[in-house]
């Protein structure tokens, strides 16, 4: 509340020149700004990643109206008056707008455009106090019992607060337009230029010694009634500067590293300006950050570029022992390259070409499909390689990473099938699964930083690259076997010939064996890791059980086949259920929220998970019934 009041007070002090339309900076300049290092959520990242994370958090999108996230963030930071009218606040439940007393169907004056789900700060402004009240009420409710609108109120309120806090990060370098210093005595004492009529906090801070002299002189007088107007103004100014610092400290942009070569304590620029150690270099860097802000507002792109370089160099020089600080340029380039997005396009092309090849039997289509597949695969592998390089970790450290990795392994396994069969089936399944998993990865990527630091117990590259990779490779094997199982059942239903069915059955069984081997190895290596970390091999933790379910189910299917209890149809149906087992191990256990491995899980993802289970159940019922009827028909 204190924070909000402070922001509202300062809102009036900050200048507003909403007439300006901002021309974009040259690409080179924007890239330099994008590469500026900062500390967020425990790791050093470029401003570019910070911007993407925040825009994603606010709007659910990585760009704003075609504008790169970093450009939008630069506008928030350096010329915030231009972003108030941008519809960036995603509101999933319109009931919240009603509760806030905000009109949803009408564009408010100054708003850039009207959207049905995203609203500008200007649009929400009349209901902000009500939103605060709703958020406070929601805070009182047990998190387990909060309704959708209550959760939404908390989320949107938190986003609005963050936005307004980011808005103020460089307020110290902006003109305090409401401040008038007309008294000639104080103007002379502070050494203000005759034609200067507006001042920034930085201007005043530079004149703090002169201000202190005036105040000392005033304090020497016994009766405050004897103070001159200049002395009274000096006290008002000092109080205002104190309030400014107090209210705008700890804003959420840790831009500058405090201690050289020491612990990674990074501070927002205003706090750096007043660092208690009186670190001159840090103060200078904060001033440079302020100059960057001013230069951006004045479209002085040369200075922006220069100051961005200086800040980056300062941080890299101070934090040369923290690997990520030197890699912010690389991370920003990785973000820009969008390898996984490009891979999706090529996989989609491959999918259609392979589908065409399968349906028409045209060899040329099948051979052509290899070209986009090769490019997509290169993008996929390069993207994973970049992530490994940037994080100095194996490819899988979180759920997002598992989808990238499993998608790749599924693709490679399918290509192995294609290499043997040369009929387009491997290209079709591989591109389909890789594409699907890259889309699912996008959903998980929207949850936050995908290259976040791992907790102490997971910070072991040895176990991350053995247990985790083995078990996820197992997921891939069982999953792709299940995809072949789906195809086999559909072909059987369509009454395809024995040879066609055999072409699907053989890889299906082989891949299931591959999946079982790696799922078993991964599960047991998990036990070994648990033994190394916690002193027990097996604890029936949900994630352990999930992996065990895959192993057990696959073993059931194999043994039932050997025992003659099931035949081809049962085997194919078993691999389809194997896919469900994989999903339960992979995502389902996170729904339970118990055990040592549980991660966060959103309602939307839970709905997606149950939707998937329902789909598989319906698929099996439909296709098995269909096959049964067909067989009965043939028998008659």
């Amino acid at each position: 509340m204190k924070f909000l009041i402070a922001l509202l007070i300062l809102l009036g002090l900050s200048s507003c020149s909403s007439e300006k339309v901002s021309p974009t900076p040259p690409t080179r300049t924007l890239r330099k700004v994008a590469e500026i290092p900062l500390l967020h959520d425990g790791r050093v990242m470029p401003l570019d990643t910070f911007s993407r994370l925040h825009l994603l958090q606010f709007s659910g999108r990585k760009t704003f109206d075609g504008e790169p996230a970093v450009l939008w963030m630069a506008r928030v930071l350096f010329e915030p008056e231009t972003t108030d009218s941008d519809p960036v606040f995603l509101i999933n439940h319109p009931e919240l707008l009603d509760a806030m007393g905000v009109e949803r169907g009408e564009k408010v004056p100054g708003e850039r455009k009207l959207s049905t789900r995203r609203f500008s700060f200007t649009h929400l402004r009349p209901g902000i106090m009500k939103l605060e009240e709703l958020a406070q009420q929601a805070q009182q409710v047990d998190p387990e019992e909060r309704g959708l609108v209550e959760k939404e109120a908390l989320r949107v309120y938190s986003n609005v607060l963050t936005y307004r806090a980011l808005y103020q990060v460089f307020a110290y370098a902006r003109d305090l337009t409401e401040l008038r210093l007309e008294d000639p005595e104080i103007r002379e004492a502070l050494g203000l230029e005759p034609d200067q009529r507006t001042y920034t906090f930085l201007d005043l801070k530079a004149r703090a010694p002169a201000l202190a002299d005036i105040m000392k002189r005033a304090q020497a007088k016994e009766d405050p009634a004897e103070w001159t107007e200049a002395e009274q103004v000096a006290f008002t100014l000092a109080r205002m500067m104190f309030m400014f610092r107090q209210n705008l400290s700890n804003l959420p942009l840790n831009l500058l590293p405090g201690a050289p070569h020491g612990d990674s304590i990074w501070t927002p620029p205003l706090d750096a300006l007043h660092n208690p150690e009186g670190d001159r270099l840090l103060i200078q860097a904060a001033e440079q950050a302020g100059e960057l802000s001013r230069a951006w507002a004045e479209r002085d792109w040369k200075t922006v570029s220069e100051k961005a370089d200086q800040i980056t160099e300062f941080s890299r020089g101070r934090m040369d022992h923290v690997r990520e600080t030197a890699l912010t340029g690389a991370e920003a380039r990785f973000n820009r390259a969008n390898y996984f997005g490009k891979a999706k396009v090529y996989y989609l092309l491959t999918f259609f070409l392979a589908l065409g090849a399968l349906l028409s039997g045209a060899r040329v289509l099948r051979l052509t499909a290899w070209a986009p597949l090769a490019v997509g695969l290169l993008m996929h592998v390069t993207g994973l390689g970049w992530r490994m390089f940037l994080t100095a970790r194996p490819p899988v450290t979180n759920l997002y990473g598992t989808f990238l990795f499993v998608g790749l392994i599924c693709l490679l396994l399918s290509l192995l099938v294609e290499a043997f069969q040369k009929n387009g089936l491997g290209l079709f399944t591989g591109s389909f699964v890789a594409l699907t998993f890259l889309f699912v990865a996008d959903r998980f990527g929207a949850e936050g930083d995908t290259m976040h630091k791992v907790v102490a117990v997971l910070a072991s590259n040895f176990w991350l690259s053995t247990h985790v990779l083995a078990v996820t490779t197992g997921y891939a094997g069982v999953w792709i076997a299940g995809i072949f199982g789906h195809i086999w059942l559909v072909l059987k239903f369509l009454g395809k010939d024995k040879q066609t069915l055999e072409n699907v059955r053989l890889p299906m069984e082989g891949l299931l064996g591959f999946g079982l081997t790696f799922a078993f190895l991964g599960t047991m290596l998990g036990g070994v890791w648990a033994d190394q970390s916690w002193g027990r091999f097996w604890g029936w933790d949900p994630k352990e059980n999930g992996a065990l379910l895959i192993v057990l189910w696959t073993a059931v299917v194999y043994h039932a086949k050997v025992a003659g209890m099931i035949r081809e149809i049962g085997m194919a149906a078993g691999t389809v259920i194997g896919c469900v087992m994989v999903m339960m191990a992979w995502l389902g256990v996170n729904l339970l929220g118990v055990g040592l491995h549980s991660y966060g899980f959103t309602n939307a993802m839970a709905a997606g998970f149950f939707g998937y289970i329902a789909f598989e159940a319906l698929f099996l019922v439909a296709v098995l019934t269909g096959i049964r009827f067909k067989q009965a028909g043939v028998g008659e």
Partner: protein
Amino acid sequence: MKISIRHFASIKLTVFCLFWLTVLTFWGTVHQVDHGIYQAQERFFNSMFFLGFGFIPLPGAMLVMGVLFVNLMGSFLVHYQAGWRMPGLMLIHIGLIMMLLGGFFTKVTGIEATVSLFEGEGRNVAVSRTEWEISFSDELHAVQPYQAVDLSDLRKGKTFQFRDSELRFRVMEVYPHAEGITAESLQTPPTMAPESAAGFVAIQPLPKMKTPEDHTPAIRLQVEGATNAEQLILTPRDQRPMGLELEEGGGRFVMLRRKRYELPLFMELNEFRRSYYPGTEVAQDYRSLITVRLGEDISREVVIKMNEPFRLNGWTFYQQSFAVTDDNSEMSVFAVTRNFGRLVPYWATGITSLGLAMHFLQVQWMQLRRRRKRA
């Protein structure tokens, strides 16, 4: 005889066991949501039988794994000749037999306990997280020597006695999780109030908790040979041991406490260090610098940290967690285990995985050859 072995070696029995284990694993996992891991373990995984839906007796995982073990052994004996042609299969079965045996051995002989140390503090005993004992000693605050009887060995009606003492105890009530009842909370106070350090006159059982660490057991004992007590109630709420005056003169002290294990070393915490990722509360690293004393003259400095435990003579010491007291003192908590069969699952994993890889490669190879021949 041969027929019965073949029955045990039935692959249909394997399918049934594996399928039922799948069901139990799924059921037990879902059960954890409302009842916690411990209760799920007790009901589904550590049991021979359990009641499904409250009234249907169903086989628990212990029984199924036992049957599976016999089935595996039978299968191994009956089909070993085929095994030479399918070496992968043989390795898989050997590995799984080892895995089941190792698990059983660990369950029967393994010890799990904790040692909690403040900086500068040292200990040579570990305390169980889940097991309790009744300790018996000559002195009020005796650390050692003392005698003890495990609470898990005591049943209603059982009698026990300690060495060098005429005192005899008979168990009247014992509960793994219970609460004590004071005289004030009873409408009619008992005619003969038992002695209790916490002032309880009766005990009553409570439903089990989600985690066994939270259990507070209680026991009511009948005492023979003491002049100051005919009945005793012991609970974890007792702040001090109960003093018993012997008829033959002298006294002894009894107490219900978490079970102690004597360690083969004396460990002293020199320093506890923890670090977080900057600006967050996400733990980056925590570690304990300890001095291990193995006798009068032998000592060594050891660092125990996450994923890097310290091992000695079958005992392993893991960095488990830490606590900070109100006066900002830091306490490091170590998980301590003794498991002589620790490496068995490691070997079993390697052998089974190798077997699986060999088997599936062989099967694929054979199928490819068959197809080529046909083509």
